């Protein structure tokens, strides 16, 4: 017979094989072939084919159809059940490899799961509001010349209502006045209950809001009418959880009409109860007090002045359908011209941006840093890939051992697909086990990272998205880890592998293995270099000469709205405590995020008129020496400067302006046009209605964090302006117990002067460190990532070393017999790995260098990037790699050649 003989249609043959029970298949196929053959003779090809197809269709009877079950035949005779059994047996036999793979993949998947939960948590904020795309917040997009972004979300009270009346295109405009307060609950016949404020991320849980607020943010109402609940003054809408916290028991109907007292003085009654949102939101307000209460209470002064903006006053709008942002925004310049305010630039910030844009702060929501989230996702992926690489490397290395198995399988009729599938099943078993372990560990790990991961991130096994993620991760990991080894294994030619020449086939593949090791160590080295450099920059920022002294200085917050003279009493009393060397009343530490003067204009009418916008603080006479700052020209403030009246007396003419003595920093002196600091002394500076002479020039210091360049800065002095008391302790080397005793003394003095307000204090060096929270978190993440990456890579290396040492046992035996020593053998076995780590260093150095350089661009003052960092990282990686494989190589090299050579 030659190949020209017509055959039945292939698809029909395959279709029959697919649906037919295997035990019946052969007979049926034979019968159909016989008929086909017969029909071929009588009726011709096409008729025979047609009849064949019709018969195939007619065979689809219940007793012929195969039952869907695990025991389906897949490749030839091997069933899925058996493949699973083979897989488990193999995994059990190679305990070291299995352990390494399982541990590595568990770490990889665990990182992925934790980071996925964290990232998806952050991106879930405020996604659930109806018409979320039309909700915006009003902001002022300002950035001054020195890169300090001002708080552009703060508004003044009258903007919202005026906007509602005078502009078009908004379907709702609402002003939020947010606050935090303890609450009094009057209960009939019982003493008043005091409910404390909320602590944590979102402390501002109270907002004044009007009916428009309810048009923008929707609630499910349990009691009350959304149309009227926030109309009348002195009414409040509570969420269910808040009402329970206040009233403890009862139903929403019972709570209606009850009284709640805020700030000891604002009495409101409940007009509505709403259900708490069960989704993540930055608007975690639980008490909605009618905005009209604000206008009718002692708080009204805060909202009536166009020029008095507060960070707790925000305006939210909802665009009318069909209105574009541009259409809405183009009304703003005219709007502000009408009202004569300087905030001419006003923009709309989308709701989705609020959770991520750090430029616009408010006291109720939390910011997430998008680049960090993306970087985290990248890190998770890298770690997973590193773990998968271990799998690939160990599998291809061991494929030598499996060459015979594959050969026999092929001889027995297994297809390439069947072998790949067998291997993918082995991979799948490990990946699923790793996933199970990772899921078990997820919640404990999240709990352990609570400083870094916000509250509320948890693994919820009921969430369909989580399952989708789990499924995808398993699938993708199986494919990355199992596809190539399966492919490589199945490509062995049975003839060569059964003759025992599997090695030769594999040699070409070891380039891939080496490449993957290089990749693993490159990633590990990136993390090592990153960790070293971020640590170096943080160290630099905290330890470089900042222009002031930061040791043994404690700052105590002074409560606002208390008589000014008490500040002096506090200062004097604390000054007399033992262990206190010096005190100073001032508005901020030399380096702080909250300097007193923002946007102040200082004018100097010299040869030419110069106006600068310096930052600045009010200080007293003790400040400069307490913080160890150096005057380069002029003098310190006198007590007389502090005592002089700065604000012009009411009714005075411009001929009698307010007086304000000034100390500039060198940068400010230069900016005002003085070549020498001394030239500035005695020159009159004008700040609106206030003017005064420059009395001194202080050496430049870092008034902001290291992200910003040193900018023009000034100190002034004025009685009663202090917002904090800086205390210099005399003993830098005091024991912890002594410091605690001093603190306790200060607290008791404080409590005597300010009864009823909490004592809040902080060491200056610690608050400086808090300026770099972001960087410290970056450093922590890199540390953890570095640890995991190195750990997983080394485990892979360990497994490979064990395997190569094992493969070369006989070679080593012969070398030993011929006189090779242990050191030679160890170096022979280690050489390849050292070379690979060396190559990794060469690749990682420029990449890491570029990445670190880019990162450092965020800082105005950066540490150097010395070459030895890269060498150090390379050496560290090499030492770690050598230590990892040393156990294996030394064991192999010291083995007795008799044992290895005997059994040939």
């Amino acid at each position, binding site marked *: *017979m030659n190949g020209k003989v017509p055959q039945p249609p292939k698809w029909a043959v395959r279709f029959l094989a697919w649906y037919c029970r295997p035990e019946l298949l*052969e*007979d*049926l*196929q*034979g*019968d*159909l*072939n*016989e*008929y086909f*053959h*017969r029909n071929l003779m009588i009726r011709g090809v096409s008729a025979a084919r047609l009849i064949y197809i019709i*018969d195939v269709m*007619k*065979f689809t*009877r219940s*007793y*012929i159809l195969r039952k869907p079950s695990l025991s389906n035949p897949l490749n030839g005779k091997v069933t899925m059940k058996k493949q699973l059994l083979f897989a488990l047996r193999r995994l059990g036999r190679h305990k070291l490899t299995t352990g390494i793979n399982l541990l590595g993949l568990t770490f990889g998947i665990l990182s992925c799961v934790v980071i996925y939960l964290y990232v998806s948590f952050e991106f879930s904020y405020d996604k659930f509001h109806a018409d979320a795309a039309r909700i915006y917040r009003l902001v002022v997009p300002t950035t001054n010349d020195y890169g300090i972004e001002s708080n552009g979300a703060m508004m003044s009270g009258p903007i919202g209502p005026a906007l509602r009346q005078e502009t078009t295109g908004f379907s709702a405009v609402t002003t939020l006045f947010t606050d935090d307060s303890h609450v009094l609950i009057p209960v009939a016949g019982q003493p008043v209950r005091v409910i404390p404020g909320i602590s944590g991320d979102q402390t501002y849980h109270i907002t004044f809001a009007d009916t428009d607020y309810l048009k923008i943010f929707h609630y499910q109402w349990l009691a009350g009418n959304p149309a009227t609940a926030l109309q009348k003054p002195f009414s409040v809408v509570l969420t269910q959880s808040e009402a329970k916290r206040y009233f403890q028991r009862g139903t929403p109907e019972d709570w209606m009409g009850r009284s709640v007292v805020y700030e000891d003085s604002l009495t409101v009654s409940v007009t509505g109860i709403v259900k708490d949102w069960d989704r993540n939101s930055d608007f975690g307000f639980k008490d909605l007090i009618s905005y009209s209460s604000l206008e009718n209470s002692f708080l009204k002064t805060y909202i009536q002045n166009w020029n008095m903006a507060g960070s707790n006053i925000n305006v939210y709008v909802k665009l009318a359908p069909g209105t574009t942002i541009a259409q809405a925004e183009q009304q703003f310049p005219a709007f502000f011209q009408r009202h004569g305010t300087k905030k001419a630039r006003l923009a709309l910030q989308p709701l989705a941006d609020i959770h991520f844009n750090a430029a616009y702060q408010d006291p109720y929501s939390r910011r997430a840093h998008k680049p960090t989230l993306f970087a985290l996702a990248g890190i998770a992926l890298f770690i997973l890939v590193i773990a998968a690489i271990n799998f690939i490397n160990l599998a291809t290395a061991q494929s030598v051992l499996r060459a015979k198995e594959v050969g026999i399988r092929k001889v027995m009729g297994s297809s390439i697909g069947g072998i790949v599938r067998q291997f993918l099943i082995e991979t799948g078993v490990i990946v699923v086990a790793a996933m199970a372990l990772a899921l078990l560990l997820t919640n404990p790990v999240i709990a352990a990272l609570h400083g870094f991961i916000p509250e509320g991130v948890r693994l919820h096994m009921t969430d369909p998205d989580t399952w989708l993620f789990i499924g995808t991760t398993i699938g993708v990991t199986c494919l990355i880890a199992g596809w190539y080894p399966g492919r490589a294994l199945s490509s062995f030619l049975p003839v060569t592998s059964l003759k025992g020449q599997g090695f030769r086939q594999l040699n070409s593949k070891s380039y891939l293995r080496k490449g993957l090791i290089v990749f693993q160590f490159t990633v590990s080295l990136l993390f090592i270099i990153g960790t070293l450099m971020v640590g170096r920059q943080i160290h630099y920022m905290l330890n470089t000469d900042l222009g002031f002294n930061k040791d043994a200085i404690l700052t105590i917050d002074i409560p606002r709205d208390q008589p000014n003279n008490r500040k002096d009493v506090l200062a004097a009393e604390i000054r007399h405590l033992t262990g206190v060397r010096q005190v100073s009343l001032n508005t901020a530490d030399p380096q702080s995020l909250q300097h007193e003067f923002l946007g102040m204009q200082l004018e100097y009418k010299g040869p030419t008129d110069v106006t600068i916008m310096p930052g600045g603080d009010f200080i007293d006479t003790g400040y400069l020496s307490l913080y160890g700052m150096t005057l380069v020209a002029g003098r310190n403030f006198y007590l007389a400067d502090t005592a002089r009246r700065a604000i012009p007396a009411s009714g005075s003419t411009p001929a009698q302006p307010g007086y304000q003595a000034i100390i500039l920093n060198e940068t400010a002196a230069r900016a005002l046009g003085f070549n020498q600091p001394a030239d500035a002394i005695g020159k009159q500076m004008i700040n609106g209605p206030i003017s005064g002479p420059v009395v001194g020039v202080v050496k430049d210091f870092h008034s902001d964090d290291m992200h910003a360049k040193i900018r023009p800065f000034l100190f002034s002095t004025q009685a009663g302006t202090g917002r904090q008391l800086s205390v210099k302790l005399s003993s830098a080397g005091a024991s912890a117990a002594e410091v605690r005793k001093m603190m306790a003394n200060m607290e008791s003095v404080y409590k005597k002067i300010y009864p009823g307000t909490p004592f809040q204090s902080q060491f200056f060096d610690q608050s400086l460190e808090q300026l770099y929270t972001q960087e410290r978190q970056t450093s922590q993440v890199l540390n953890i990532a570095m640890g995991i990456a190195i750990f997983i890579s080394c485990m892979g290396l360990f497994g490979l070393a064990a395997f190569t040492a094992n493969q070369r046992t006989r070679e080593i035996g012969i070398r030993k017999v011929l006189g090779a020593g242990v050191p030679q053998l160890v170096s022979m076995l280690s050489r390849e790995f050292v070379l690979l780590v060396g190559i990794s260093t060469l690749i990682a150095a420029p990449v890491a260098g570029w990445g670190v350089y880019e990162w450092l661009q965020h800082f105005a003052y950066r540490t150097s990037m010395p070459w030895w960092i890269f060498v150090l990282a390379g050496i560290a990686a090499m030492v770690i790699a050598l230590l990892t494989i040393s156990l294996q190589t030394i064991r192999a090299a010291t083995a007795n050649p008799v044992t290895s050579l005997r059994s040939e």
Partner: protein
Amino acid sequence: MKGTHLGEFEELVLLTIASLVNSAYSVAICDELSKHADRTVKLGVAHAALHRLEEKGLVKSELGEASPTRGGKRKRLYTLTSAGRASLLRSKEIRDTLWQKIPNLTLNRVL
């Protein structure tokens, strides 16, 4: 389990298997039936009947030799089990008993 009652077609198939002795397989059974019973027997029908008979325990089967016309596939050869033989005999007995009760004349007239 279904009863051991033998349908008319099943009985024919069973007889054919017995008559073909050691070469009874699906296609041959179809051919034989078509030839002697003067009706076209479809392959699917034959298979269904064979399946039922095997389920009732009246026949047993094993795979035999392959041939080029079958594309290298082996045929399933059927043989009677003792139960099969017994049930064929019993149905023959029933018929014989009934046949003997018919007087010759009556039959001729009827036919």
